[in-house]
């Protein structure tokens, strides 16, 4: 019997299709990576690094908000903790190589993240947002009062130092490729996390928490882990940022920064992998372009306007809307 549509061939066809899609994704991602590798020859590397640091920050935030459904309004605390810790260590211990300083900053943010998670995890939705906001405010006041942060002036002249004691990071190009490597590694990590069984549980928590509980998952443990990973990555972003710009300031700890990362994620498309990256690129660019022109003083209200517009009309963000558009028009 010759059956053209037997189970095996259907299976094979589906696999083929999957493979073709994977290939398409691989090509797209490859192209993006090539673009990032070539970018510093076309644009100012420090500006690109700023985008990458904020993109990592937004990716970290999105892991929590976009994939787990937990709106943290205190993520600035992790950015600042990473930045200040790294800045303090590199400024005061001249023998320290840069990667150790960055790791220490990340570790500090991770510990803080665990503390935040344990305190806030019992609340949900907006309650959760409020609690994280207030905890972050506590951290902000700590930084304001502490002498090592330089108070309102911030921490200046943080040395970039050398990577592994060999590669000179004072060179912008070296620094850029280091930041890019860290960023790509983290991006892949998050991609791996959200597509893993663990990531599936996170999504199920976002969609229907009581059901996840009834399926026997220890929901709080999953949430705490997601929070800690997110805090760690946000801290890493802050640590790198302080090395790149050689300064750490109260701006990073202010609750406005927590709002800004929400804006980046929302504008780019929350719950998508590429969304926060696109959002961070968009927001950093807008801020930069506006600050150069006659609209210099209108950055805040314009960002506020974008916020309102996004919530009202483009809730899926740039990437989300694009995906919807592609789906509609390409089968």
């Amino acid at each position, binding site marked *: 019997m010759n059956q053209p549509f037997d189970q095996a061939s259907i299976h094979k066809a589906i696999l083929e299709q999957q493979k073709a899609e994977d290939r398409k994704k691989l090509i797209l991602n490859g192209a993006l990576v090539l673009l990032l590798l070539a970018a510093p020859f076309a644009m100012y590397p420090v500006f690109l690094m700023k985008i990458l640091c904020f993109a990592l920050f937004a990716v970290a935030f999105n892991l929590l908000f976009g994939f787990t459904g937990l*709106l943290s*309004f205190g993520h600035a605390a992790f950015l600042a903790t990473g930045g200040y810790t790294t800045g303090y260590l590199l400024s005061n211990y001249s023998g320290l190589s840069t990667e150790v300083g960055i790791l220490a900053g990340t570790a500090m943010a991770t510990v803080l993240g665990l503390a935040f998670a344990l*305190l*806030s995890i*019992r*609340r*949900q*939705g*907006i*309650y959760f*947002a*409020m*609690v994280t*906001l*207030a*905890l972050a*405010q*506590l951290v902000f*006041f*700590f930084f*304001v*009062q502490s002498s090592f942060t330089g108070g309102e002036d911030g921490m200046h002249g943080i040395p970039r130092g050398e990577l592994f004691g060999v590669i000179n990071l004072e060179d912008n190009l070296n620094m850029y490729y280091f930041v890019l490597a860290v960023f790509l590694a983290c991006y892949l990590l998050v991609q791996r996390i959200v597509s893993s069984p663990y990531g599936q549980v996170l999504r199920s928590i976002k969609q229907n928490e009581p059901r996840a509980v009834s399926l026997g998952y220890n929901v709080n443990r999953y949430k705490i882990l997601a929070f800690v990973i997110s805090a760690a990555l946000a801290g890493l972003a802050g640590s790198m940022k302080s090395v790149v710009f050689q300064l750490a300031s109260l701006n990073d700890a202010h*609750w406005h920064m927590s*709002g800004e990362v*929400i*804006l980046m994620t*929302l504008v780019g498309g929350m719950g998508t992998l590429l969304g926060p990256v696109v959002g961070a690129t968009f927001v950093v660019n807008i801020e930069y372009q506006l600050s150069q022109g006659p609209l210099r*003083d*209108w*950055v*805040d*209200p*314009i*960002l*506020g*306007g*974008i*916020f*309102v517009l*996004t*919530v*009202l009309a483009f*809730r899926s963000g740039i990437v989300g809307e694009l995906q919807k558009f592609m789906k509609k028009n390409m089968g």
Partner: protein
Amino acid sequence: MSMIFGVPLAVLSGQLLIGVINGAFYALLSLGLAVIFGLLKIINFAHGAMYMLGAMATVILFDALGVNYWVALFLAPLLVGGFGVLIEYFLLRRIAGQDHIYSLLLTFGAALLIGGVLTNIYGVSGLRYSMPDLFKGGINLGFMFLPYYRAWVIVIALVVCLGTWFMIEKTKLGAYLRAGTEDSQLMQGFGINVPLLISLTYGFGVMLAAFAGVLAAPIYSVTPVMGSHILITVFAVVVIGGMGSIGGAIITGIMMGVIEGLTKTFYPPASSAVIFLVMVVVLMFRPAGLFGKEA
């Protein structure tokens, strides 16, 4: 001079007085937030901006039209409350039924917009507003000096707070409000205009914030950023009291003002953080807040 725990009585009572006044502002603001959150489930991140608008309106009305303090006390909250109704009608209504988090994000954006525009027009340095003549001076209580205006703020804030509590918890209008937000379809069936009720409730919460703004104009420096400074503290107060709890907001507001004042006397460096510390401790033992019900 008599001393208490090594602090002169006059200093202590002075700080306590400032604490109670700040507490009165916290109470008014967190009450507005609690009304808006408790009845409408909207996290109003624009609340600080509305407080600021109340104060700014008082100064602007005086400079432009010579409107005096007493008229401003009614006019400014009405204007700002009307503005709030417009925001509810044109913006917040469009995301009703969506995740509550979007209301937080929307009002946050609106606050950024409002604050940014006013900063561009008026700058960030404080505008001057002079005390109404009636309130110049004060009374010597023997152990401390009590300025009349501060006494007035405490009294009027308490009256407004208790009036609001009474209206929502004890009157028929309050019952309509609570029912309308609980089961809007049923209330529609009874012939109540629920969308209007929601607009007015939001407007009323905003009016409370603006009223606090008018009270603040003669004693605090009036700037476009004054709201964003106090907003986060007030959110902490609301979390401590239990979100949506009307009575909890009032009591916790005053309590936190006093605790802040005491901290300023005994250990100044912690004074700006103490409210958030209290919040952490309260959350560890009562996640729903002191007066909140477990959600």
